[in-house]
């Protein structure tokens, strides 16, 4: 039998996923994951895990280097990879929003040619161009996006918001909601068929566990 390879995003999502998988009957020792080993194999169940940078998970899965993966909907939207997106795992819930200074509340549409700072250039572009039918200047940043409107780098930002506390502390508000975000189970399109039975069982078991929770 061939290994079933699962790519997990480093960090909290990985822990939550492992917990869920364990409850669904897949042996995965947490302590091993916390060690520095890159790949953890279980020869009894022929399941193999590895941890990757969250934004890389869809790449591993699309190319078939991993059969399955867990990844945030934000990354999936941004990367637009060719995958099966089979389950909404529910955790890691947050929202993708357009945010800006308080004075822009209800006045977002009044700024022409706005500059939008974001870690998600594709999502920002798609939202403004396809949904709002306007052209924008996208400024790609790698972190602390909230800073951009405060120092005049951009008028607004597109980012994920969980509690909204960071926004509030910086006098920013949510101007528009783009979509809800949560963790998804994704599957390589070829693996889904070549390893059909095992993957179907896994999806079913995890699905049941989610319903019970």
């Amino acid at each position, binding site marked *: 039998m*061939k290994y079933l390879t699962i790519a997990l995003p480093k960090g909290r999502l990985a822990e939550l996923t492992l917990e869920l998988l364990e409850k669904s009957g897949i042996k995965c020792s947490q302590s091993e994951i916390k060690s520095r080993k890159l790949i953890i194999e279980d020869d009894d169940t022929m399941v193999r895990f590895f941890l990757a940078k969250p934004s890389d998970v869809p790449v591993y899965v*699309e190319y*078939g*280097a991993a059969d399955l993966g867990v990844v945030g909907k934000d990354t999936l939207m941004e990367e637009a990879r060719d995958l*099966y997106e*089979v389950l909404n795992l529910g955790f890691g819930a947050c929202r993708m929003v357009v945010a800006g200074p308080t004075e822009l509340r209800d006045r977002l549409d009044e700024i022409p040619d706005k500059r939008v700072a974001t870690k998600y250039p594709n999502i920002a572009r798609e939202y403004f161009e396809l949904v709002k039918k306007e052209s924008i200047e996208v400024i790609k940043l790698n972190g602390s996006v909230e800073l951009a409107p405060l120092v005049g780098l951009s008028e607004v930002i597109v980012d994920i918001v969980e509690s909204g506390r960071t926004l509030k502390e910086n006098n920013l508000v949510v101007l528009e909601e783009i979509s809800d975000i949560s963790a998804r189970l994704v599957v390589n399109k070829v*693996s889904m068929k070549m390893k059909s039975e095992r993957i179907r069982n896994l999806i079913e078991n995890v699905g049941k566990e989610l319903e019970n929770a």
Partner: protein
Amino acid sequence: MWNLYSPDGMQDVLGSNCSIKKDTEKKLRELFRDNGFSEIETPVVEYYDVFSSAGSELALRSMYKMVDGKGRILTMRPDMTIPAARVAATKIKDEKLPAKMFYCGKCFQSDIQGGGKQREFTESGIEIIGSSDPFYDSFVIYMAVEAMKAAGINEFIIELGQVDFSNRLMEMSGLKGDDLDILAKMIDSKDFFGVNELLMGNKVDDDVKSLLLDLPNMYGKVDVLDSVRSRTGDKRLLSAIDNLSEIMTILEKFGVSEYISVDLGMIKRIDYYTGIIFRGLTYGMGFPVLSGGRYDNLCSSFSKELPATGFSISLDLVLAVLYRNGEIIADSGRGGTLVAFLSEGMADAVLVYKALRNQKVPTEFYPYSDEADMIGYAKAVGMDGIVMTKGKGKIETIDIDSGERTLGNLEALKGEVL
């Protein structure tokens, strides 16, 4: 300066990699030819209009484009099916229909790369143009099975879908425009959660809704078809199912059912497909290595109504699979005998060379002065043995594996091999 590099997504193929690729092409060529297909060669460069009139949006975006002296846009062909359809519609006489053609050639798409996919890639495939008989669909799928085997892939699935089924079901949802595109994308990614959310906001017939929600799960063996048949009375849905089941029944006669599965949620990737579509999947490759289907309207963009069906297999992906699964080893060497000579042994070398060639032994000349260099070369290119001619009939042979040396005389060999 980029003079030391090949363009992104384009590769030099050397040594055994190249010979294995050419051998694989040859196996496919023989398979297609012996099954009634005739080979065609079409230009690598075509007018842009050939592809734009065929309306394949995906291909248009990714084509390399140039302009000729008269201001016409030229393009590197992004696929082989559209040129084949052009040939059938413009060059083949009616009495020769259906045209059964095969090809093996390079295609180019500027935006793909990764996971084994290249921007310059070799496609080999068949097209049957001028018949709508589902028997031909089955035959083409049977040929797809045989092509996978001929290429050396043994564990694989040919997965069937039906454009009429998925399109009709989406149409029945009543969604329009962008929503319909989003629905197609969600079905294609088996995003049951997304489909549910999208349908909730719209008034959709309950039966249609339940079919759409189950669509991500409608894959597997032939029983998938039976379970759907009992759930709808829609004529077009049923006729799409009947078409699939007829094709699968014929495939049973060909004895290849073990390789066949169905996915009713398969969405067409190329605009010209109209009926059955299929793709070849295997271990070690995250993308389909083979794809095909029925395209009944493509030829009409070349002013002739010719229903058609066909497939192509990607040589580059097939070879990547074989390497990854360890079925072939890169640079394994070419074998044969090196005929090496000192200048005074040249005439003897020619005799030995011709004698070996008469016995069909792969042979290569190597004039040498430094023996160690010469042996190094023989090892590096993967020869099996060396014959050295040293003049006046003196010869010495070396077995590369064992290193064993044998002295001999050309006179003594004359009776035997020369």
